[in-house]
C-alpha cells in the first residue's frame, strides 16, 4: 500500500479543523444547554405563577367566605341577644340594633317584620321594593345576594330567616349589607400591590371597581378578553363564570401576554379574578433566569476567547517550529554544499569546486564574456619525501602550511586544492589586476623560505589569451611555467623530490 507523506501543513490544518470542531461543539452544547435552561425556567415560572395565582385567588375567595360566615354567625348571635331583651318600643329596638351593630361590627344590620317593614338603628321603612330577598313572602334559608344600588354602589346582602316577636310583632328576617368597597379593602390588605384583582358578577361585570391591570381595567371582563383569545377559550371562560368554576385564562392584548386565575366565591355568584403582570415572582425568576443566561453567554464568550487565544498560540508555535526546521534545513544544505566543495585539510575549495568553477568559466569563455582572467598553478616541493620519511601527519602539516602561505597572498576564495600537492588560484577582477606584484612577492617569499628551510612552493601562471577556448588552455601554459620555476628553485637550493631521493 502506498503511503502518503504526512506534512506539517497537513498536521496544522488537521489540528486547526479539530480545534474549530471541538470549539463549535462545545459552544453549541453550551448554547443548547442555556436554551434548555431558559425553556425550563419559563415552564417553571408559568407553573409557579399559576400556582401562586391559584393560591392567591383561593385565599381571597376564602377570605370572603369567612367574612360571610362570620357575619351569618354574628347575625344569629345578635338576633338571639335582641330576642332575650324585653323590647317594648321602637326606640328600644333601634337602640338594641345599634348596640349589636357596634359590638359585632356589622354593616347595615337590620330586622324585618312580617309586613316587610325594615328596622335599622336610625330608620324604619317599608322595604319590599328595596330588598330583593323580601320579594318572597317567607325566607326559608340564609340568602346571599348582590345589591346594585341606585347611585352605582354595590353591596353584598346577607339575610337569614328569624322567628322572634318584638313589640308583639312577628319578625321574619335579619340582614346585613356589606359595601363591596369594604370587601376590596379587606382583600387588598395583604396584597402589597403585587397583584391585580377584581370581583365579577356571572355576566362579567366588574363589581369591585378595581382595575384588573391596565389593559382590562374596570371593563366587563368578557368584553375585554373577547377577540384576544380563541372563541372556544372565551366560551369556556364564560361557561366557567356561569357555572361557578375556577380556572385560568391566558390572553394577549397589545402584544402583552397576561394570565388570570379565577376562583368562584361560594354562594355569591361572584368570581374572584387575580392577575399577576410584572409581578414579584415572575420578575424575580426572570431575573435569575437572565442572570443564568448571561453567565452562559459569558462562558461562551470566555470559551471563544480562550479557544481563539489557544489557536493563535498554536498557530504561532507551529509556524515558528516550521520556520526553525526550514532554517535548519537550509543551514544543513549550506553546510553539505560547503562540505562538498571544501578541502577538509586546508579549508580551501577542493577539486570539485574547481571543476564547477572551470565549467562556469568555460561557458563564459565560449560566450566571450571574459575580460580579466589568469590562472596560477602551485606545487609543493618535497611533499612525498616528508610523507615517506616523517609520516603523513608531517605531510599534512606541510600541505596546511603551503595552503596558508598561498592564502596569505591570494584571496582565500580563489584558491583550490586540485591534487595532493597541487593548488590552483583563479584570478579575476582585482586579483587579476594585482597579479604581477603578488606573484613577485610570493616568489620572493618562497625564495627566502629556501634559506629558512620552510615550505617551498613552485608556481606558474598564465593570463587568458584571445585564442584560448577553455580554462585548461591557461592551465597548461601555467603548468609548464610551474615546472620551469621548479627547476629554477632547485637551482636556488630548494629541496626537490630528486634531492630527497638522492640524499637518501
Amino acid at each position, binding site marked *: 500500500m502506498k503511503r502518503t507523506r504526512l506534512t506539517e501543513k497537513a498536521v496544522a490544518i488537521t489540528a486547526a479543523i479539530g480545534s474549530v470542531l471541538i470549539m463549535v461543539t462545545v459552544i453549541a452544547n453550551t448554547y443548547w444547554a442555556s436554551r434548555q435552561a431558559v425553556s425550563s425556567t419559563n415552564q417553571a415560572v408559568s407553573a409557579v405563577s399559576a400556582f401562586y395565582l391559584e393560591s392567591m385567588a383561593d385565599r381571597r375567595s376564602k377570605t370572603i367566605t369567612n367574612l360571610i360566615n362570620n357575619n351569618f354567625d354574628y347575625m344569629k348571635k345578635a338576633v338571639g341577644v335582641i330576642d332575650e331583651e324585653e323590647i317594648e318600643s321602637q326606640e328600644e329596638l*333601634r337602640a338594641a340594633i345599634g348596640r349589636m351593630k357596634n359590638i359585632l361590627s356589622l354593616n347595615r344590620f337590620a330586622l324585618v317584620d312580617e309586613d316587610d*317593614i325594615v328596622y335599622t338603628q*336610625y*330608620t*324604619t*321603612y*317599608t322595604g*319590599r*321594593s*328595596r330588598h330583593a330577598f323580601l320579594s318572597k313572602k317567607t325566607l326559608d334559608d340564609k340568602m346571599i345576594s348582590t345589591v*346594585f*344600588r*341606585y*347611585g*352605582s*354602589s*354595590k353591596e353584598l346582602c346577607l339575610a337569614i330567616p328569624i322567628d322572634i316577636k318584638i313589640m308583639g310583632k312577628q319578625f321574619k328576617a335579619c340582614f346585613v349589607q356589606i359595601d363591596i368597597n369594604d370587601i376590596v379593602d379587606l382583600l387588598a390588605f395583604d396584597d402589597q400591590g403585587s397583584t391585580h384583582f377584581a370581583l365579577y*358578577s356571572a*355576566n*362579567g*361585570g*366588574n363589581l369591585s*371597581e378595581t382595575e384588573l391591570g391596565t389593559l382590562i381595567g374596570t371593563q*366587563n371582563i368578557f368584553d375585554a378578553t373577547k377577540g384576544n383569545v380563541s372563541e372556544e377559550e372565551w366560551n369556556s371562560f364564560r361557561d366557567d363564570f356561569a357555572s361557578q368554576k375556577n380556572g385560568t385564562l391566558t390572553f394577549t392584548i397589545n402584544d402583552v401576554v397576561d394570565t388570570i386565575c379565577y376562583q368562584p366565591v361560594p354562594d355569591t355568584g361572584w368570581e374572584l379574578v387575580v392577575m399577576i403582570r410584572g409581578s414579584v415572582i415572575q420578575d424575580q425568576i426572570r431575573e435569575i433566569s437572565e442572570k443564568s443566561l448571561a453567565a452562559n453567554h459569558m462562558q461562551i464568550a470566555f470559551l471563544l476567547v480562550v479557544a481563539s487565544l489557544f489557536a493563535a498560540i498554536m498557530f504561532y508555535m507551529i509556524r515558528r517550529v516550521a520556520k526553525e526546521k526550514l532554517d535548519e534545513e537550509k543551514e544543513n544544505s549550506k553546510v553539505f554544499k560547503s562540505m562538498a566543495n571544501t578541502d577538509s585539510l586546508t579549508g580551501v575549495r577542493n577539486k570539485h569546486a574547481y571543476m564547477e568553477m572551470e565549467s562556469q568559466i568555460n561557458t563564459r569563455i565560449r560566450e566571450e564574456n571574459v575580460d580579466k582572467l589568469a590562472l596560477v598553478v602551485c606545487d609543493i616541493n618535497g611533499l612525498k619525501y616528508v610523507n615517506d620519511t616523517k609520516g603523513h601527519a608531517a605531510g599534512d602539516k606541510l600541505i596546511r602550511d603551503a595552503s596558508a602561505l598561498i592564502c596569505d597572498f591570494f584571496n582565500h576564495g580563489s584558491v583550490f586544492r586540485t591534487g595532493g600537492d597541487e593548488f590552483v588560484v583563479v584570478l579575476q577582477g582585482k586579483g587579476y589586476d594585482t597579479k604581477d606584484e603578488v606573484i613577485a612577492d610570493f616568489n620572493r617569499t618562497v625564495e627566502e623560505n629556501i634559506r629558512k628551510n620552510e615550505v617551498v612552493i613552485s608556481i606558474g601562471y598564465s593570463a587568458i589569451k584571445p585564442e584560448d577556448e577553455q580554462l585548461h588552455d591557461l592551465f597548461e601554459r601555467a603548468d609548464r611555467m610551474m615546472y620551469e620555476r621548479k627547476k629554477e628553485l632547485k637551482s636556488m637550493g630548494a629541496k626537490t623530490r630528486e634531492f630527497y631521493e638522492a640524499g637518501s
Partner: protein
Amino acid sequence: MNNIFRKFLIVALSLVAAVASSGYSAVGGTKADYTESVVDFEHNLDDYVPAKTNYNFYFTYKIVHPWWDAVALGMEDAQRKYLEKGIVITYEYMAPDAASYEDQTRRLLEAGEGNYDVIGVDVADEEKISPVLDEMVALGNKVMTFSSSDAAPDCKRIAYVGNTHNYQDGADLTEALCEKLGYRGKVGILVGSYGAPCHEDRAKGAMDTIAKYKHMEIAAVEYDMDSVDKAYELASEMLKDNPDIAGFVCCNMSNPVGTARAVTELGSKAVIVGMDHDQEALHYLKDGVIYCLGVQDCYSIGFDTLQVAVKIADGNLPGDLFPDKTDESTTIIYQEDAQSMLEILYGDVSQ
C-alpha cells in the same frame, strides 16, 4: 375615582343650575351628553346649625316603589352626614303596597299622635290629603310635603321639597313625542295613581300639548296605579283597540316599562316617552324601544327633604333658610344617553 367623578358631577350640575337660572328644570334640554349632571350624588350639608342633637321624623309616600327607594338613599346620606356632626336623626319612611288616600290619611293621623318633630308626606291625592294636613297643622304638628307631589296651593303645610314642574315635564315629554311623530297621529296616555298630583299634572301637560296640534289626537287615557303589570295590560289593550296608535305618553315610573313590554311583544312601532329612571326602562331606552325619559333627581330630593325637615323642626319657616318650594330638576335623556345613565345609576350597563 368615584370622588373625582362626583366632583365633576357637582361642577357639571352647577353649570346646569347656572343655565337654568329661572329656577325652572332642565326639561327640554338638548340631546347633548349631559347624563352626568342628571342626578347629583355628592351632597354636603349647608351651614345651618341645628338647634337640637336629636330629631325624629315621619315620612310617608304614595306607594312602595323603587322611585322612592332612590329618594330614601338621599335621605340616608343626609342622616349620615348629620350623625358625623353629632346630630342623631331617626325617622320612619313608610308607604302602602298600593296608592291610597285612605291609607295615607290613616298613616298621617297615626303619626300625628306620635312623637315626631316633623311629618312629611308625598301627597297621594291632593284633594283628599290637603285637608288632613291642614287639620294636623292646626293640631300643632309640623307638616311638610316632599318628593313628587305637593298638596293643594292653599294647604297649610310648611314647605315642599321635590318636583315643582310636573305639568311642564308632561308637556315637554309630549312635545318631544309630537316632534318625533311629525305632529300627527294618535297618542295613548298612561297615568299613575288617581289623584296623585304629580301624575295628574303630567297627564294634563301632555293633554294640553296634544291639543295644540290639530292632526294629533288622544286615543285613550288610563291609570296603572303604579303597577308595571297593569301598565302592560293597559298598553296592550290600547294597541289592540287602536292598532294605529303612533305614540305613548307615560306619566310615572311604571308606565314606560309596562308600555315598552307591550309594544315589544306586539311588534308595534309606537314611540314611547315616559318618566323616571327604572333600570328596565333605561335598557328599553338604550335599545331604542323608548324614545326619551324624564329623569328626576331623586337623590337630591331625599337629601334636601331631610335638611329642610331639620330646619322646620327647629321652628323655622320658609324664607332665607329654605324656600316654600325647593325645586329639584328633571332632565330628558335619549337613547345615546342611556348607557352612561345606566352606569351612573346602576354601576354597570350589563348588570
